[in-house]
């Protein structure tokens, strides 16, 4: 066994960290990844999790819900310990003050990666290295950070935006025994086993195009689609009234199509006649209206396909959009979704957005290991 998965929803942090430590026991861990409900004090969470696992990298972030093998949880901490048979090497860097509009911190992190691995990140083999990114989910900086990461490397960085149980007040990433807000955590790993990315969004493309003809990029707001007020054009595409448009957002987001695959942009709310999104859309971008599919069937199928492609999957880290979690809750399907992952050691969280090449919404984006 190369990983041990643990979770705890005891009353207080002391009991939880002891519980997790006990479950992981004498396992010879190389690193521990954890996702913690925002109900726990962030500084104490970071410090106690690091103390529990001593001299190895211990990192994670706050959530809007936790995922562990076979279960979707709330108000808990989930953890996964990896041994050296699965993770040969790892280096973690924190980029702070990410909402200041700059990206020098990302360049600095990559310089540190070069020092640690003794190799330029740009020349690293994409089959031998992979990154995890955990980022403040209220910073609004995800696109800029992912864009710079993508400039500096061909390696894939996958991850998500930290949540705070839908309070929308403050989110944290955890490393080095500390809690960081307004920060991104970049973990560059050299796994010893084959790995891959599984991204699924459970939407199909409809034959309705919306071109973002006027946008406020920094505010993640679309002012006009197809040269009409955004709400009017969206309502026309969906076939509903302007008044009813927001009620369709969850099941009818829009997607930037790459071939047949949508990179989902989820509408959040209407302000005047504008639509505010959960990620930014560049001016002149052509988007397709999407329609929700059966999330359980789609995710099962996507996992089966990836298992066939890889031979087998022994570990899953699932970055799962909070909007998907809310849909599952509304349809009373949380248990069914958790069961999809009942037979594979899994850890994950409900995010405020996923990271895969860029910043995306309404996906389950998973890092999977052979």
């Amino acid at each position, binding site marked *: 066994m190369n990983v041990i998965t643990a979770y705890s929803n005891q009353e207080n942090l002391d009991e939880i960290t002891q519980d997790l430590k006990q479950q992981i026991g004498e396992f010879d861990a190389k690193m521990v990844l954890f996702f913690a409900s925002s109900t726990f004090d962030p500084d104490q969470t970071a410090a106690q999790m690091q103390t529990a696992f001593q001299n190895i990298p211990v990192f994670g972030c706050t959530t809007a819900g936790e995922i562990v093998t076979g279960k979707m949880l709330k108000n808990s901490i989930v953890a996964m310990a990896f041994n050296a048979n699965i993770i040969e090497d790892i280096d973690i860097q924190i980029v702070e003050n990410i909402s200041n509009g700059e990206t020098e911190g990302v360049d600095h992190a990559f310089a540190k990666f070069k020092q640690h691995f003794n190799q330029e990140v740009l020349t690293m083999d994409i089959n031998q290295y992979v990154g995890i990114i955990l980022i403040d989910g209220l910073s609004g900086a995800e696109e800029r950070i992912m864009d710079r990461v993508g*400039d500096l490397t061909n390696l894939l960085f996958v991850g998500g935006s930290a949540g705070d149980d839908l309070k929308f007040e403050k989110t944290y990433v955890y490393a080095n025994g500390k809690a960081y807000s307004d920060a991104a955590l970049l973990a560059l790993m050299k796994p010893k086993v084959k790995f891959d990315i599984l991204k699924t969004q459970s939407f199909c493309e409809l034959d309705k195009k919306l071109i973002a003809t006027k946008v406020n990029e920094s505010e993640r707001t679309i002012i006009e689609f197809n040269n009409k007020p955004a709400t009017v054009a969206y309502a026309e595409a969906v076939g509903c009234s302007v008044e009813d448009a927001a009620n369709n957002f969850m099941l009818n987001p829009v997607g*930037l199509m790459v071939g047949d695959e949508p990179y989902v942009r989820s509408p959040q709310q209407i302000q005047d006649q504008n639509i505010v999104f959960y990620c930014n859309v560049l001016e002149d971008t052509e988007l397709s209206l999407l329609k929700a599919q059966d999330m359980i069937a789609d995710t099962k199928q996507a996992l089966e396909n990836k298992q066939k492609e890889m031979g087998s999957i022994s570990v899953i880290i699932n970055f799962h959009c909070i909007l998907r979690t809310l849909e599952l809750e509304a349809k009373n399907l949380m248990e069914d979704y958790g069961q999809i992952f009942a037979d594979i050691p899994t850890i994950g969280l409900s995010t405020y957005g996923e990271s895969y090449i*860029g910043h995306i919404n309404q996906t389950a984006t998973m890092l999977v290991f052979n």
Partner: protein
Amino acid sequence: MPGKIKDMIDTIIEQRAQGSHIIASTIKIKLILKGINPDKYTSESPDNINVINKLDKLAEELGLKL
């Protein structure tokens, strides 16, 4: 002379991917997310100066010389 945009896009992908099809497809997605869809440009596409300037900046960000 039309087609400069396609040439620039092809050069960016070629220089960065170094023959890897997987990296080439990732770079293509990165370009789309940055607002340039490679599939929309052919050797007949007119040389739109705004797009050319954008590609120059983008190549610089990627550490490439066109």
